[in-house]
């Protein structure tokens, strides 16, 4: 995969150049935009793990993205109100420390992916797609009708959560934090897929029966990747909440699941940097089409359909013809 590596370098350089341009021309908006791309890229890296490497077509990753987001927002809401988050069984107060929020977002979204995975992975094929979709919608409707945290209106955060010694309100600092998380996510993914476990996972994707016959419990293999995948997407959700200083049920909506899936496919399935490229392409398309027409979604839909019908292996596939998957 020499070509893909070469390409990844360019993607990385391009990413760094955007905030640089933002600073030179004093346009903080570009930095925010690049941060958004990175965060959506992390969410995509999470989904890619299950979808690309595990072959698990989850149409419900908005659930984890939203859970991560709500963890960040609810914690900071309680920190601001100085209300206790729980009184029973332990008195737990809110917090606006990212160092507390991140692990919490990861653990809670991992817990939910474990739960949803345990139920959903009993099914396969279309049923799996539908049931993951249904679980995400279930949380979506719950978030709309549960009034404590804003219900349908969402919950805004007074200010971005904090880190010791670093001013997170500075766009560049926050960009770098997200970039660091992106590389951690990439690192975890590449370690995971190149480990013996990763081999079992990719073999399961190709032929589950054979993997079973050599004595590997494929259910466990799939469950593990689903939990990792959900946790990474959940972390992305908490960063996204901090970026916008706002969460709303739309983070849990199935459109979000669809979009994260679009990033993965657009960039090229089962390619490490694919989701980032897909997210960048999507956001750039959204921004430029938005300049010319109000109905940019129409053209976006058209481009996506053409892409799926004609360019089947994603953007990376276009440049990397020899390594077609």
């Amino acid at each position: 995969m020499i070509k893909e590596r070469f390409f990844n370098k360019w993607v990385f350089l391009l990413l760094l150049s955007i905030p640089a341009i933002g600073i030179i021309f004093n346009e903080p908006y570009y930095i925010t935009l690049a941060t958004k791309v990175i965060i959506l890229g992390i969410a995509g890296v999470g989904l890619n793990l299950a979808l690309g490497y595990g072959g698990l077509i989850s149409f419900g990753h908005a659930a984890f993205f939203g859970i991560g987001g709500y963890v960040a927002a609810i914690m900071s809401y309680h920190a601001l109100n100085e209300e206790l988050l729980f009184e029973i069984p332990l008195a737990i107060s809110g917090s606006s420390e990212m160092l507390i929020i991140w692990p919490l977002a990861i653990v809670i979204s991992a817990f939910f992916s474990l739960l949803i995975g345990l139920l959903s992975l009993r099914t396969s094929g279309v049923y799996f797609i539908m049931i993951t979709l249904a679980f995400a919608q279930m949380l979506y409707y719950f978030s709309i009708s549960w009034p404590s945290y804003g219900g349908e209106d969402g919950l805004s955060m007074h200010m971005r959560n904090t880190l010791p010694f670093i001013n997170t309100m500075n766009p560049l600092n926050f960009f770098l934090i997200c970039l660091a998380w992106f590389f951690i996510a990439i690192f975890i993914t590449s370690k995971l897929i190149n480990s013996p476990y990763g081999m079992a996972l990719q073999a399961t994707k190709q032929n589950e029966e054979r993997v079973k016959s050599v004595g590997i419990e494929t259910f466990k293999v799939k469950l593990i990747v689903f939990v990792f995948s959900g946790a990474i997407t959940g972390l992305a959700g908490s960063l996204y909440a901090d970026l916008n200083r706002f969460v709303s049920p739309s983070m849990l909506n199935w459109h979000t699941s669809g979009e994260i899936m679009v990033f993965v496919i657009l960039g090229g399935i089962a390619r490490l940097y694919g989701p980032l490229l897909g997210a960048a392409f999507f956001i750039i398309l959204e921004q430029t089409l938005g300049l010319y027409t109000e109905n940019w979604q129409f053209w976006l839909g058209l481009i996506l359909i053409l892409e799926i019908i004609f360019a089947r292996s994603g953007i990376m596939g276009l440049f990397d013809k020899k390594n077609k998957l």
Partner: protein
Amino acid sequence: MALILFIEQLLNGIQFGIMLFLISAGLTLIFGVMGLINLAHGSFYMIGAFAASIVAGLTGSFWIALAASLCAAAIAGVLIEVLIIKHLYKRDHLDQVLATFALILLLSEGVRWLFGAFPLYLNIPSSLDGSILLPFNIMYSKYRMFIILIGILIALGLYFLISKTRLGIRIRAGQNDREMISALGVDISKLYTIVFAIGAALAGLAGAMIGAIQSIEVGMGEPVLILAFVVIVIGGIGSIKGAFIGSILVGVTDTIGRVFLPNFLNYFMESSNASSLGSSIGSMLIYILMASVLLLKPSGLFGKSE
């Protein structure tokens, strides 16, 4: 009093279920015969409603509007099948999900472009306005009763079509073995287009009928689409019978749950907590129902095991 309320809500639930059936019947047929997941199926529901509203505005007749919704959705169905969907039959589910997701963006935005963002309306015809008296002194909306009747007629019609006609035999054969029936000389591509058009037309009709009770707006098909998915997953993908039973189950559970769960919880907790918890759980009930069905039968009530 409580009994009357209950029966009224039960009828509402059945009406809702019937409407879901019109959408999920097409969805499940399309999946059963062509093996295609069509996320854009809700768009035909929207197209039917818009067509009905516009034709009703031009002609003033509700009945012509209903016919127009059927035709418009069927024509849109044929066009979309021939132009786009045809390329997806041989692809995996992932490509299908994505392409039809993109199709939703395209169709929703296209309709907004043509008709603007304001909601449209459709009036109930005067012959169906008002309510009728049912046994036990229950007054019930004539129009909703009409929807229930139409839905039952269509369910019977579909049953007849699938089990008794030549087209039905081909459809069932297509569900069993696609390659074999094309080898036997059935024009499979035409059959696919017909099945897709039937599914689209039914969804369009549902949209038009509901358009007289709710406002007609872009994106109206999406929540319904997800419910239709829940229905066919519960009923078993590919089974019309499953779709019918699943629809009624989902319609009734959803309606009854939303109305009675807050009251029920009232016995256990304060009323404000009960109403917020009740409505949150009420909105989640059908998904809980679906999860429990899948736990017991991973391929739905009437689905073939994979």
